[in-house]
């Protein structure tokens, strides 16, 4: 394989022979960094994260945005956003942020502060739920698929049981009894969403355990645990990552649904879903109350999906469009 446009200034004659040895980690990082969509998405998500944490502060630390998301105030200009990106020669006031760039809600709370708080909460819940469901799903799916037989029957019937429970009702009941903290909601969502992951991973394991490389590992004296972790799991990374990103997006949506029926994050705390559901009726007259949190939800879900795509491609050794 001839290095294409290699940085090594090798003479033309030994070009073909200069093959730089790279470790697997270097290759994966490299492929990820070269994935344009993923890098853009990563930058956007990182930007959202920084904006949400630094603006109103996090964990008791003060942010640079002076207004508190809990503080009510006087509603100015029917709570219209003061953010104006159009310069003065086009339409008037010129690029300006104003006092309430995203507007104000009914009782005069700054909507920018509220949206930032909601973003913090929604991100925490979604990522945590994604993590929990992935860990539980991969673990159960792997055990079920690898050991098959009786283990498989037990785990899969349990999965069916969890699947048959109405997720919303379950989450609502738990949310009610535990008071609706973000961590509790994340845990619940995670414990509901692992089923699809478990089934997918089980399917992959059932297929992969029959491959000769698994037999070869056994013939070398590898333990079942090692075969699962080192030999089979890396081959399921694509499925796991894609499903995890879908779960994260779905968790944001379900959290929205929970908040919509009033069982999600409880006031005065807020989440993006809660903001949308609270102002669903104002959509006709004050659409910004709906669009801003909606924009953040879409941005988070999209960027997570793109990053997932990038990671999947980066872990796949057959993706060699980035080969230098």
């Amino acid at each position, binding site marked *: *394989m001839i290095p294409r446009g290699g940085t090594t200034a090798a003479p033309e004659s030994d070009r073909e022979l200069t093959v730089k040895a790279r470790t*697997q980690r270097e290759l994966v990082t490299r492929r990820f960094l070269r994935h344009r969509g993923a890098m853009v998405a990563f930058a956007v998500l990182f930007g959202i994260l920084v904006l949400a944490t630094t603006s109103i502060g996090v964990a008791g630390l003060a942010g640079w945005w002076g207004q508190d998301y809990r503080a009510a105030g006087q509603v100015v200009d029917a709570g219209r956003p003061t953010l104006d990106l159009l310069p003065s020669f086009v339409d008037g006031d010129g690029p300006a942020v104003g006092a309430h760039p995203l507007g104000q809600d009914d009782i005069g709370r700054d909507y920018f502060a509220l949206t930032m708080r909601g973003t913090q909460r929604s991100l925490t819940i979604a990522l945590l739920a994604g993590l929990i469901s992935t860990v539980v799903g991969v673990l159960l799916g792997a055990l079920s698929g690898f050991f098959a037989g009786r283990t498989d029957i037990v785990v899969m019937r349990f999965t069916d049981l969890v699947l048959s429970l109405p997720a919303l009702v379950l989450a609502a009941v738990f949310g009610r009894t535990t008071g609706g903290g973000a961590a509790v909601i994340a845990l619940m969502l995670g414990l509901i969403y692992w089923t699809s992951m478990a089934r997918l991973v089980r399917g992959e394991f059932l297929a992969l355990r029959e*491959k000769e490389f698994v037999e*070869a590992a056994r013939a070398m*004296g590898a333990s079942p645990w090692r075969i699962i972790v080192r*030999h089979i799991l*890396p081959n399921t990374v694509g499925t796991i990552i894609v499903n995890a990103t879908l779960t994260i997006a779905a968790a944001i949506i379900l959290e929205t649904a929970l908040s919509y029926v009033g069982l999600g994050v409880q006031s005065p705390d807020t989440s993006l879903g809660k903001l949308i559901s609270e102002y669903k009726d104002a959509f006709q007259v004050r659409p910004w109350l709906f669009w801003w949190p909606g924009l953040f939800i879409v941005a988070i879900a999209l960027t997570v999906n793109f990053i997932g795509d990038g990671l999947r491609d980066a872990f796949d050794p057959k993706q060699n469009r980035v080969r230098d």
Partner: protein
Amino acid sequence: MTVPKIPSAAVPAGTPVPADASAPGADGDRLLEVTGLQMHFPVTQGLLRRQVGAVKAVDGLDFTVRRGETLGLVGESGCGKTTTGRLLTRLIEPSAGSITFEGVDITHLSQAKLRPLRRDIQMIFQDPYSSLNPRHTVGAIVGAPFRLQGTKPAEEIKPAVQDLLRLVGLSPEHYNRYPHEFSGGQRQRIGVARALALRPKLIVADEPVSALDVSIQAQVVNLLEDLQEEFGLTYVIIAHDLSVVRHISDRVAVMYLGKIVEIADRNSLYETPQHPYTSALLSAVPLPDPDRRHQRDRIRLQGDVPSPLNPPPACRFHTRCWKAKEICRTVEPPLRPLGPDHLAACHFPENAPDAQAE
């Protein structure tokens, strides 16, 4: 390459060739001994998993493998060759019989106790596409035996792997490549390098070349032979291609429905096959010479291999054998000597020394 003699043409085969000179014939030098080996896979039915039968994949094998020789194991699909290979490497546990390796009974050793033994018995797999983990680099694949067995400190693994790659004719620079970047033949060599890593005494090769095209087959077969010479390896080679087996083996065992029907020195088996089944197999080997192809009598076996769920009684071949008599249906023929280093299980052997059927 000599063409297998046409069995039914009753060509005087000359004196049965004594044990091949390259095969160390000393009886005391047995590396692997198999007696009465059985593998019955249970067939279960219903909710309670009641056993309703068993697939008798391997049903009583007796043979020995001598140190430094190559034993070829041939037979039709489904005759239990692969199961035998997996039993010898103890990837599965036999349901009866015993396997003795270097005087140690390994028949029922636990996986933990088998671990050190894995250094001495290695396996080469049939499919070079499925036998290498697509997510592991060549370095990780060939180096895995060292890591698993802990025989080398971490910093010595890479040079050792690169030596192995050189040994099987690959470049040490391939260390960080992935399997999909190689051709079938190269991949099979990676498999060979992996099997060689721990310098095993016995290598069981399950159809090592059947997935490769003919020109590559020769490369891999020759590589196996060179390595045998260099490291004094012992091979059990499972194959269905009789030409390949003839080329590489010192002795050949023919299997039919989970049993060995004939086991003999290579030349003796190919020149004077005793079991009708062996004759039939040999007559099916394609001949490159059209004249000779037209001359010989092709033995066409009727019907399919009977089900291993319910094999025919006594001689298992009697349902398809053109020589079958009443005795074949009632008395199972034992493996008996019919020449020097030549055993066959038949009441009416083809080329018996005294030409006298029992």
